[in-house]
């Protein structure tokens, strides 16, 4: 079995994202004890919209995590060479690639329209008599099993039927299991189950149909667009979370310190963020990314495979985005801390001789958590969009790493072709739209529940 002969690869971004998952899980596990927080979360989840958006976000996160389990396949020993040494493929594969069942390996020569059998562009070929003709070439991996091109639609219908049957069976299994566990729950789980069923059916259909057709066509390099869009999920989700993760400690530490200690600490912090926010963000980010690109180019030895190089650039981008976007959160937290540190319980803690560290940890931090949470969810979607903008101006993700920004960037020229190549943009747009919409709707709900200024957050208190 070739699956066993694989060498796991742990990219830096993989390590970070799994660390993040662990941190978030423990964080929420500990928050569980606080009745107020529990009540607010239950407010978020008792609406159908909350359930639906959360499920969608979880699907995206799940795909991103599957795509973060990387390994390199072992290659078969070259014929005639007797060696015990195992050679590994230079291409890094992820568990998601396995689950998509080779969807990314079926390359064409160039563009092809969704579900097309022939190439989008004409090329020179020889007919059976050896004459040179210029025509649309038959695709390598689409419709090869068909007896005649006219069978395409009945065949698709048949494939869809089979896929739906399998999909519904799988969905029934997954939902049924949850139904047994969560029967008596007061939350509208059925909304989540519906989304899960739809997602499972869609994925089964996508994977099975893409064996025989390119569902969303192919791009200029002949890569399957549906596959690329799915690969873009990891980039988008990771960029959103990692950048926020880089930003949070800076913003929280500086903001809380400025608000609590006041005096010169406050002056320094204010000076820092005022300076930072007076530099146009996009220029600062572009300059930093280019600087790091030069470093990568000058030190090729540090990176074993091309994927690691792309990954290094990706992480650098996360850090840069995080380092340049903390000022607004810092300002919010500073103001909130200023307010809280004048409140009775902090004064009482001073009167009890509680140490600064304990006051910060017990009294101030827990009471600014709602701001952190709201900002985390709100900033997430804007960071995903920022990636698209940066890739568009050419300082974003490495082109070898699938990303929606890069796909949109390519679409710039494709849309001006006649007839237009619309499917690359459509693929990226659809997946990005779903994520950002879900994140925005969810963040609205979180804000309503947690913001003390919105009335409903208080009603239960």
């Amino acid at each position, binding site marked *: 079995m070739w699956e066993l002969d694989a060498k796991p690869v742990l990219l830096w971004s993989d390590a970070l994202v799994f660390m993040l998952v662990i941190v978030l899980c423990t964080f929420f596990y500990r928050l569980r004890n606080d009745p107020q927080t529990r009540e607010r979360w239950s407010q978020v989840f008792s609406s159908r919209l909350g359930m639906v958006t959360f499920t969608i976000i979880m699907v995206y996160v799940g795909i991103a995590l599957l795509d973060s389990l990387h390994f390199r396949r072992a290659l078969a020993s070259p014929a005639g060479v007797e060696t015990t040494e195992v050679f590994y493929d230079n291409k890094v594969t992820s568990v998601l690639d396995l689950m998509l069942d080779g969807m990314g390996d079926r390359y064409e020569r160039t563009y092809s329209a969704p579900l097309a059998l022939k190439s989008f562009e004409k090329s020179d070929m020889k007919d059976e008599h050896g004459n040179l003709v210029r025509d649309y070439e038959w695709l390598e991996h689409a419709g090869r099993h068909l007896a005649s091109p006219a069978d395409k639609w009945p065949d698709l219908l048949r494939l869809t039927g089979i896929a739906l049957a399998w999909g519904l069976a799988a969905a029934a299994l997954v939902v049924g299991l949850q139904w047994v566990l969560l029967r008596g729950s007061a939350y509208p789980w059925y909304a989540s189950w519906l989304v899960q069923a739809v997602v499972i059916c869609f994925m089964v259909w996508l994977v099975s149909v893409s064996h025989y057709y390119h569902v969303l066509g192919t791009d200029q390099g002949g890569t399957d667009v549906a596959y690329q869009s799915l690969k873009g999920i990891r980039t988008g989700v990771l960029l959103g979370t990692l950048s926020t993760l880089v930003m949070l400690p800076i913003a929280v530490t500086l903001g809380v310190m400025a608000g609590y200690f006041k005096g010169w600490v406050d002056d320094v912090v204010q000076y820092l963020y005022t300076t930072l926010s007076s530099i146009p963000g996009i220029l600062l980010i572009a300059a930093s990314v280019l600087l790091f690109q030069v470093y990568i180019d000058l030190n090729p030895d540090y990176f074993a495979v091309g994927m690691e190089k792309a990954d290094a650039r990706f992480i650098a981008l996360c850090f840069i985005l995080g380092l340049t976007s903390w000022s607004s959160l810092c300002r919010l937290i500073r103001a909130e801390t200023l307010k809280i540190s004048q409140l009775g319980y902090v*004064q009482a803690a*001073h009167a009890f*001789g509680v140490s600064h560290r304990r006051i910060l940890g017990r009294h101030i931090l827990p009471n600014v958590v709602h701001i952190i949470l709201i900002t985390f969810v709100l900033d997430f979607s804007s960071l995903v969009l920022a990636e698209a903008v940066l890739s568009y101006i050419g300082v974003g993700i490495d082109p070898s790493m699938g990303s929606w920004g890069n796909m949109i960037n390519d679409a710039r020229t494709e849309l001006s072709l006649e007839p237009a190549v619309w499917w690359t943009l459509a693929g990226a747009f659809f997946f990005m739209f779903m994520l950002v919409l879900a994140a925005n709707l969810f963040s609205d709900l979180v804000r309503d529940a947690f913001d003390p200024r919105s009335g409903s957050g208080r009603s239960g*208190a």
Partner: protein
Amino acid sequence: MSAAGDIRMQVRDLRVELAETGEQILKGVSLELRAGQIFALVGESGSGKSVTSLATMRLLPEALQITAGAVLVDGQDLFELPEASMQSVRGRRVAMIFQNAMSALNPVQTVGEQVAETLRLHTPLRGDALRRRVVQLFSEVGIPDPDSRFSFYPHQLSGGQQQRIMIAMALACEPDILIADEPTTALDVTIQEQVLNLIRELTRSRQLAVLLITHDMGVVRHTADEVGVMYRGEIIEREGVEEFFHNPKQDYSRRLIDALPDLTRFQSVAVEEPLLQLEDVKVYFPIRRGVLQRVVDHTRAVDGVSLSIGRGETYALVGESGSGKSTLGRAILNLEESSGGRIRFKGEDIGALSRRAMLPYRKLIQVIFQNPFSSMNPRLTVGEIIAEGMVSLGMGLSAGQREERIGQLLDRVQLRREYRNRYPHEFSGGQLQRIAIARALAVEPELIICDEPTSALDVSIRAEVLGLLQELQREFGVSYLFITHDLSIVPSLAHHVGVMQAGKLVEQGSAEQILTAPRHPYTRALLKSVPRLDRA
């Protein structure tokens, strides 16, 4: 103009509810305003006084809905008028003045211009005649040098003068009815009296029908002709002012009167060794200006205060908000750096101790704050809140002993032991203040600084908390520095009284001496603003 005593406005069975939940805010309020008389609507905050006044003028926020009732002015029901005609009723027939004059005046327009604008809207006066009318109004409301004040901006006038401008503006169109919502609450006692006298004079001279909304019984005593006590959306008692103060019928009204109860019994003054001595204590806050934030001047929050508190004694520090009482309390706790003078606790100078050196004294001096809702961390349980001091001050207790002590303390402040696992938001204000007392007692202090511990509480609960504090004093021999603006609680509670004004202690002495024979004019003014229950 109609004769005195005619009904100018009649409110009948006014009901208002919260649009969203249907909760009743006003449960059938009826009252009449008569020409030349002042009707005072009194009650605690949240009792529905302001909602009543806003509802009669149809100025309620959208969240509130009028469900029943009528407001009759000259036989016309205001609730049946179209909004356009209401505009002319407000201002022309009925005028309103609010609590905070500064925020009701436009800061970028001269006060004369603002009054003239109202006149221009409702009268044909223009040009010189208009200006003369404004100046005339200014002199009527007692603004000195009215001609030159015409071109002043609001911030150039004092709070009392701003309120006078508001009154001038309200009177500009010669309304029949005046609604005054806490018109003097934001003012100094001395100025408060002048403004009230003005309202009273105008009521007589112009035959106004006045609805005066206030929580201050002193104001009622001095100005009103008739009193309505509001409690939870209902008028529970209505009476002429003399009868009301001599013989309140409802128990609640009696407590609300909150008067100087009995000036014959005082806490006996025991000569004891001093526990806390303040010598010429000063707290200055620097005022910084310019790019380099140079200190150009100081705000003298506490300006040379000397006093002494004995063991087991209560010292009441009385004064208005902004007089520096709370700052002095914070300075004793070493939460505010003192700029001069000496703070001696048991003979040791603790004023200049560092955070670390102060630790042993933290146990001995504790504090209870005004607002019980903000003085508890909402994310900690009651048990954790009470335990905090014991843990950080190293009382040398094991976890089990600590739990036991928390239980005892909760017993002592008459709360149930199970409450330790609850969170602050599950409690009422009075219960929270008991928890705050338990928290302070947890470290066995010898002095507790009580910073207005009852002013955020309902009158009904106030007495219970004060009673508890006195019991604890007898039991543990703890001293209190009791910071308050409320003179009525002083006789039963305090041994000594100090009166603070603008950072200075203007008068101090035994409670009896201050309350029966005040020497300083400011003390006299303060005392005068508190009503007396003279039950013959």
